[in-house]
């Protein structure tokens, strides 16, 4: 398998991924109708913040676990004509 990700960085990324995966199911706010800042329903505010956290996770992934070697491999000379149907 092509895998040039830094192994410790990759593990951390997927640990955070799993944390967010389970945090998505926010049953604790299921019937909370309070308004954050006076206008944003709690369930929506939580998930908007969740989106920001996702962005943070993927920023971390890009800087700690970037597939450098895969990129180098792809940038080496291609194999022209390898795929008969390619243009």
């Amino acid at each position, binding site marked *: *398998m*092509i*895998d*040039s990700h830094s192994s410790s960085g990759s593990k951390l990324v997927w640990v955070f*991924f799993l944390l*967010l*995966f389970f945090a*998505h*199911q*926010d*049953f604790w706010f*299921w*019937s*909370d*109708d309070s*308004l954050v800042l*006076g*206008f*944003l*329903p*709690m*369930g*929506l505010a939580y*998930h*908007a913040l*969740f*989106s*920001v956290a*996702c*962005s943070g*996770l*993927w*920023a971390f*992934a*890009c800087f700690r676990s*970037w*597939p450098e*070697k*895969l*990129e*180098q*491999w*792809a*940038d*080496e000379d*291609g*194999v*022209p*004509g*390898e*795929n*008969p*149907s*390619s*243009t």
Partner: protein
Amino acid sequence: MNDIIFLASAGEPVTRTPLYVLMVYMGLLLALGILSSRFFRGTSKDYFVASQSIGPFMLLMSVFGTTMTGFALVGSSGKAFSQGIGTYGLMASWSGLLHSAVFFAIGIKLWSFGKKYGYVTQIQFFRDRFDSKQLGYLLFPILVLLIIPYLLVGLISVMKVVQPITSGMFPDTFGLPDKVLPNGKSITHPLSGGVPGWLSGLVVSTVVLFYVFFGGVRSAVWANTFQTVVFMITGVVAFYMIADKLGGVASAAEIVKNHAPDKLIREGSIGNWHFFSYLLIPLSVGMFPHLFQHWLTAKNAKSFRLTVIAHPICIAIVWVPCILIGIWAAGLYAAGDLRIPPLPGGGPNANAALATMVRTLVENPLLSGLLMSGILAAIMSSLDSQFVCLGTMFTNDVVVAAVGKEKYSDRQLIFLSRAFIVVIVLVSYFMALYLQGSSVFSLGVWCFSGFAALFPLVFAAVYWKRASLGGAVGCILATLVSWCYFFYQDIFLDAGAGHGEYLVQGVMPVTFVFLASAAGMILGSLLTEPPAKETIKKFFPTLS
């Protein structure tokens, strides 16, 4: 709320300025198509993957613009109108986590294979990976059939948006008979005098067709970038204008709290497992052929970084205002202060919620026109990629695969691609006319369900050496059979009638289609010959 009445007032003159703004916007798109064609290098590689020259910002905008369609604006606000704030968690936050995960874990690998081996379509990759030319002939019609509902989502959204916003502008040409209320009183039809769906769909299809004709995927990327910027900015402006008209965001929220409090929570409208099972839908991006084509336009792998990081934030920027506008519309409607165009069977047409809010609350005709352009921008930024992609697939995966590339010149290949695009546009347009009354959200979910169910195919292809042709065929057939079964139950037998949404054992049908697909891949691979050593070496090289 008695001082704010938004019911349409019959007989009032309605300015056509918003429509003129929209016409200027369409003109700009046509000009952009002509401009981008000046950069066209005349080769099929340039037409299909823009000679792999697209940098980070344009990649983000084109990928984001492509994934956000009428489904994101019209569907999300409509779903929030009927089901409340849980709509965001169902689609947007799952997408923030999983779209980027797919871009990071799958997209970069596929880009590297595309770069290395010269692919322009995902079927070329699957053919090589599973050592089978015939696999492409099995996959092609399935991908086309799944993409057509996606095109329909866009075209139906256009039809649903333009008519309410332009209502009253052409009372003589597009007038509709008055509606008679149960109490015998007759009122002006809310859509009377608006540009009808057949015309708005025709104009949008023609404009998109025009600019993809000129420059292929490069035109689509340029137009997507422009349109994504437009719809993100106009979305925020629409939100501000509507909130301002309602007396501020806090006042708007109060309306919902007083008249439609159920829209502020998920209790009663969305179950726990139902909510959880939506996680499978965003996996569809791993199998969207048009997204694969956009990935291949990237100049280098690092161009993906901005897309991976910023995608969840971009989703939030578009979806949070749409969800809020949807629940505000529900509050106003429940209070009797907003008239939403009805469905043929009675009841409000939730898909028209956004357009109705813009039409009735944004009083500046220039801004109203800009907002209409913004909504159409989101829709067209997906349509163009899908049109180009279908043309690319037909040319490369059917024609070239069958007779060989040497039979045709580059010019002929581009001609074939354009001809197929015209056919697809015509088919989609007439189907959209026929299905105008369908729910944009449901149609979108069925399309995404099919692509999501095929996710095990691409995941196994890049991560599982043992994945074989038998597994690929098992995966595709299991998806086809189970998807058709549940689709038939929902659409033809109306199994979800009365429950708001068709669920099986409390979860989305895609759960079972996905499980069948994964089982097909695993069993099919383990029960058949493993891939050849050369194939393994080609797609799983040892990197030093």
